[in-house]
């Protein structure tokens, strides 16, 4: 059964770790549908599996059992090589600690995903400029990460995540390392990407205020979802 409007469908998803002789289940038999254009905040206590879920959605980890279906196609059983290609085409990642390359300028960092496409050098430069423009960082294009504040680095990381025009943005605690004001600016940027450009965003956070920027909040607790409707 596939839902035509669904971007993601999770079917009976389980993730278990073996710790010594013990097997620990992070979650067991999780079902969920994420629609195109959603902005979802996944919340929950530490160890509830928020980040693990994000890894499974982003194809950087594999489930113990169950299926991850993206646009009607299973991605959990793809080979590493196919999965890398899938990520390059469909997913943009935003990390808590930005994960920028310290020796590259902001523009060079943003250009990285485009090196996996067939775009010409000129076309890549234009795309980089557009992406930096969207996050308001054009005037910092030549700066290295070390010369930028945390908030500015996260903006560059967002530009890198959107530059190849992926279908989904996966953000892991994107404001976890930032002060309130800067965090709000970053969250407004994400909201803008969702509303204006129609990007599907899945964001893991433990900060209720950050979650309030999302359209849906899902609480992961003891391996189950509890959905909280928005006012």
């Amino acid at each position, binding site marked *: 059964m596939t839902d035509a409007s669904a971007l993601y469908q999770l079917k009976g998803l389980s993730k278990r770790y073996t710790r010594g002789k013990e097997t620990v289940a992070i979650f067991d038999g999780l079902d969920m549908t994420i629609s195109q254009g959603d902005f979802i905040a996944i919340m929950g206590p530490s160890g509830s599996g928020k980040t693990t879920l994000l890894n499974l959605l982003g194809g950087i980890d594999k489930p113990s059992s169950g299926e991850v279906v993206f646009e009607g196609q299973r991605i959990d059983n793809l080979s590493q090589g196919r999965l890398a290609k899938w990520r390059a085409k469909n997913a943009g990642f935003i990390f808590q600690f930005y994960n920028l390359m*310290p020796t590259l300028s902001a523009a060079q960092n943003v250009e990285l995903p485009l090196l*996996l496409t067939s775009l010409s050098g000129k076309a890549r430069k234009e795309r980089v400029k557009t992406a930096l423009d969207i996050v308001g960082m054009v005037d910092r294009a030549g700066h290295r990460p070390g010369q930028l504040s945390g908030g500015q680095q996260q903006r560059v990381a967002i530009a890198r995540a959107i530059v190849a025009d992926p279908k989904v943005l996966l953000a*892991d605690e994107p404001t976890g390392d930032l002060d309130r004001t800067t965090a709000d600016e970053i969250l407004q940027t994400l909201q803008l990407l969702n509303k204006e450009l129609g990007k599907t965003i899945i964001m893991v956070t433990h900060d209720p205020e950050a979650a309030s920027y999302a359209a849906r909040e899902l609480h992961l607790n003891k391996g189950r979802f509890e959905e909280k409707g928005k006012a």
Partner: protein
Amino acid sequence: MLKQTTAVTLLNLRSIPQRWGMSLATVLSIALVVGVLLGFMAMASGFRATVDGAGSDDVAIMLRGGAMAEMNSNVSRDDVRLVEIAPGIAMGDDGEPLISSELYVVADGIKRTTQTRANLALRGLGRHGPALRPQFDMLEGRMFEPGTAELVVGESVLREFDGFELGQSIRLGSNEWTVVGVFSTGGSVFDSEIWADLGVIQNLYDRGSSVQTIRARLTSPEAIEALSEYVENEPRLNLEVLSERAYFARSAGGTTNLIMFLGWPLAFAMAIGALAGAWNAMYASVDARTRELATLRAIGFGGFPAFFAAITEALVLAFAGGLVGAVATYLLFDGVSASTLGSGFTQVVFAFAVTPDAVVQGVILALIVGFLGGFIPAIRAARIPLLAVHND
């Protein structure tokens, strides 16, 4: 794939300065390996060049059969007379055969650098002796007078040993000598010798009328055939006939091989040490970039660019090490004068020669060390778990 690989490789190389301590240690340890290897090779080729330079094809050397070296040879006065009438030997302007009977003994000299005693060859030679050394040139003073306690010294002796200045009196063993001339033979082994009159040496050192070698100028390099045939067919003679070049090649072979047999194993042992250093540095490099590499993989980059980039970094460091080693060896050793025991237990002074060929071999050794040291860390770089993106 090319764009990816280039990008990751540049990323990697640019980050070397962030790990400069470790990178520098790798470069230096590889430089040291190459330096040691090239040092030995320079020594071997310098020694060979000196000894080769001493040999000419139209000079024949005759030693007692089976003697192998001058030191062990003994040739009687009667033998010399028989050789004087042999075919193939050139005549001088005075109508006499160009033959020099020679005898050498070991004398003590004081080395300038260490002020320690070292062996020197004191050669007694006939009046045609100098003419049998093609590049012989009297630099200062004059030739010794036959029958006197005068000597002439090679320029290397003057440079390396104390007390041989022109006009100086010097005591060798129990005898007092006067230095009357300084000669050069164009950098060959003879420059490390002291020459005096054969008869005087025979007397002072109690050698009767016997000598060790007979040196003869041939009419042409081919004439050695005729001379050899004559010596072989003359039952009273038990002599080995060699061209001077063949004689020196044979005596240099041992020393050159000894130098090389010491040099390669030592360089090899040190290379293993440098390999461990390179391995360590590359592991540190990959570890330092774990999150970066995982992030690239998450973005969609393949494992190969990470592997290639790490190997390239190792090779770049190794190449730098190789060059530093080669340049340092060249600056420190090329042309530097050294001396060693020649096959006759006397000092042969020679110049280190750092040849382009040796430099190439040194750099290749460096690259091998870099490749082997970088290989396993590079595989690790290609296999960084994606989940490392969350490392902080």
